């Protein structure tokens, strides 16, 4: 019998040591170092601005609101390790992140075990919300809309006939490229090649394949660091096909790296350029004042994501006069509606934004951001979920 008392005692002992604090932390998890830091940093700074703006209000309510920025290095293993650290900190009530779908999926499995709400400012992979988790919401559109939207623009508006599809062999890049390919073929264009590559410097082998298959359109599913170099080398070798990519190219770095080659390229994005949002102007000025940088697309999505969490927190605290549990907050976030800088934010049954905007951006000059060629407001695809877990 003695044996059974000892562990129970220890548990009780530990529980006593655990005290409720009045600190509320919102964590951001995005790549802050390495190849995709330029995108991840924007998410962090956007959320930081939102948190800093809300701090005085929470002070009045008797709580200290803090930002806990984390670096997932765009690597799923690091992402999961960060997630496991976050869930053990009882002050962390919500996560704004990640950047990469391939990181978000395994990490959110951890959040789900602890009902920690995650609001995604950037993950476009359908699987993020199609798993029907209560605690996962996203502000951006989905690849199964973004890819086809790009394909439709490419085939119908630009008249692409022979399309060469390249992707970067990541969950995100391959996923969106596949969606693009399916729709493009459906619309009658011929996809002459569908190749993945991890190469980062020398794309000559691919370019030679392009020379052989003579595409009039090249779609690259991936991030700017590869896409820009590919585009530059394509133009150097005289491939004149129109170039298009998904929101991974939506960074000033894309234009910086590709240089003049960026001229004439298209990208689709789920986070529209700031000038698309009338409300974003004030935010952009504040952002610039605070961080000395011009906010890029993901910054305003980071900002809105944090604001959704903040709104839910505030309404709970005002009613209940206490900190919500993570499960309570998850439930509340799903029902929260705010009028954010990216438009009205509301989530559907499975956590997708009810109506998300998709933009096709044209880089008429080698200057970021380009001109919006087309805006498509598209409701989230019908729910595949029978129930929410």
């Amino acid at each position, binding site marked *: 019998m003695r044996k059974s008392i000892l*562990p129970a005692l220890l548990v009780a*002992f530990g529980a006593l040591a*655990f005290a409720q604090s009045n600190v509320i932390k919102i964590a951001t998890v995005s790549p*802050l*170092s390495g190849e995709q830091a330029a995108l991840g940093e924007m998410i962090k700074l956007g959320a930081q601005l939102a948190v800093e703006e809300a701090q005085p209000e929470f002070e009045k309510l008797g709580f200290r609101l803090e930002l806990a920025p984390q670096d997932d290095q765009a690597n799923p293993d690091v992402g*999961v390790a960060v997630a496991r650290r976050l869930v053990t900190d009882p002050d962390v009530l919500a996560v704004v992140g990640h950047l990469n779908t391939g990181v978000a*999926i395994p990490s959110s499995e951890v959040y789900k*075990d602890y009902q920690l709400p995650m609001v995604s400012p950037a993950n476009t992979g359908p699987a993020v919300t199609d798993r029907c988790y209560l605690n996962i919401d996203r502000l951006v559109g989905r690849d199964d809309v973004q890819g086809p939207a790009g394909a439709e623009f490419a085939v119908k508006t630009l008249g692409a006939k022979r399309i060469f599809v390249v992707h970067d062999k990541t*969950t995100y890049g391959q996923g969106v490229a596949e969606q693009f390919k399916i729709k493009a073929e459906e619309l009658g264009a011929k996809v002459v090649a569908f190749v993945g590559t991890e190469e980062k410097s020398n794309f000559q082998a691919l370019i030679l394949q392009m020379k052989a298959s003579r595409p009039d359109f090249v779609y690259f599913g991936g991030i700017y660091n590869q896409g820009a170099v590919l585009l530059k080398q394509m133009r150097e070798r005289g491939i004149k096909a129109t170039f298009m990519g998904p929101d991974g190219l939506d960074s000033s770095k894309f234009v910086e790296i590709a240089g003049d080659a960026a001229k004439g390229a298209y990208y689709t994005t789920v986070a529209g350029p700031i000038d698309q949002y009338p409300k974003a102007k004030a935010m952009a000025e504040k952002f610039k004042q605070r961080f000395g940088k011009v906010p890029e697309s993901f910054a305003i999505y980071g900002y809105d994501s944090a604001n959704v969490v903040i709104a839910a927190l505030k309404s709970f605290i005002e009613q209940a006069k206490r900190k919500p549990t993570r499960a309570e907050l998850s439930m509340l976030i799903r029902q929260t509606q705010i009028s954010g800088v990216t438009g009205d934010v509301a989530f559907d049954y499975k956590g997708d934004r009810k109506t998300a905007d998709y933009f096709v951006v044209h880089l008429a000059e080698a200057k970021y951001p380009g001109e919006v060629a087309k805006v498509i407001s598209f409701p989230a695809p019908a729910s595949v979920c029978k129930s929410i877990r």
Partner: protein
Amino acid sequence: MKNLARNQLLLSLAIALVAVASGFWLLSDPRGTLPFLLTLASLLGAFLLPISKWLKVLIGGAILLIVVPAAGFQNSFLFELGVQIGIYAAMALGLNVVVGLAGLLDLGYAAFFAVGAYTWAIFGSKQANEFMPVKIFPLPGEYFYLFMLLAVVAAAITGLIIGLPALRLKGDYLAIVTLGLGEVVRVLANNLDQPINITNGPQGITPIQRPPVDWFIAIFNQFGIQLDKAQAYPLFFYFLVLGIIGIVTLVNIRLDHSRFGRAWIAIREDEIAARAMGIPLLPTKLLAFATGASFSGAMGALFAAKQLYVSPESFTLIQSIIILVMVILGGMGSIPGAILGAATVTILNVDVLKTASEYLEGLRSSGFTINLGFFKYNFANLPTQLEPAKYERMVFGLIMVLMMIYRPEGIIPEKRRVLEMRESE
């Protein structure tokens, strides 16, 4: 004699006291890094100091089986840490056979980890439906234990396949070829989503079945402790890993003292002399390779079940290097060294470096200012790039270089090794 006995008694008392004190500190502050490290230090102390075997077992058992699990209830990160240490320790023990005993530098060790992980991931998820004629997948969690054994076999076979060409080569070439073959396995995992979708490529495989824990929860219910599944899994994996480490360590010790162990060491010391003594080189080396690989394969299956997600990105060169660093740090050829190395590197990597980064981030966001009159510094200006957690390669590289220069035999050297490493001094 009497003096010695009294010294030992004092020592025993001291370490027991430290262990109890640190244990209680950890229980009262389960999220603290310091009490955790102190607890582990007392565990290490109990192991290294010349005290009675019974006391060692008592302290070790109390810390590993009671204190850490109890503290883990409030901070499940401890379990995560414990499981990761365990996984790496088993792999370090496996690599220790290859690098430490047989003296074969294997830079593609993560490949076997990948083979093990994919063995369970493919059949423990819907993935296998993509290419198997019968659509009965995912297999229920009970099959996990069977597949852990299969993972051992699969990894050992991979070890033979990789080893057969690679082991004909000498030292340096072997290193670079294993590095290459390790990369080949990763690239294959990344690309075998077509023409037949076996690994699901870069998308990775998720969700993966976990072994059922209902019986485990039932046992705890017997003692009046209520567990839900989210709590039970970390605890379960923790105990599972402890058990596996025990088995792996035993196997290692037996191997070390067996005919094969002596043959490996003979090859390590002098290949030509070993051959002259009648040791068949290639089969003996292959055996070492396959043995090391099989440990890694088992842990791979466990990793897949624990992580619920497997993707090629988990099996890069840096993974192999990290395991190598563990072996080097602890001492090539030394069994306690490999475990210590694994614990040190894992804690450094997932806890200490991250804590240090968070501390710096805290300083940064608080805008704390040092003012020494002549020297004024506002921490808000601290560059955000200055985060120890980002520079793991630098830390591990430095460990490797420094260890090789100053203590090539490792922290807990294998006794035979000391002589060799320092022979010409």
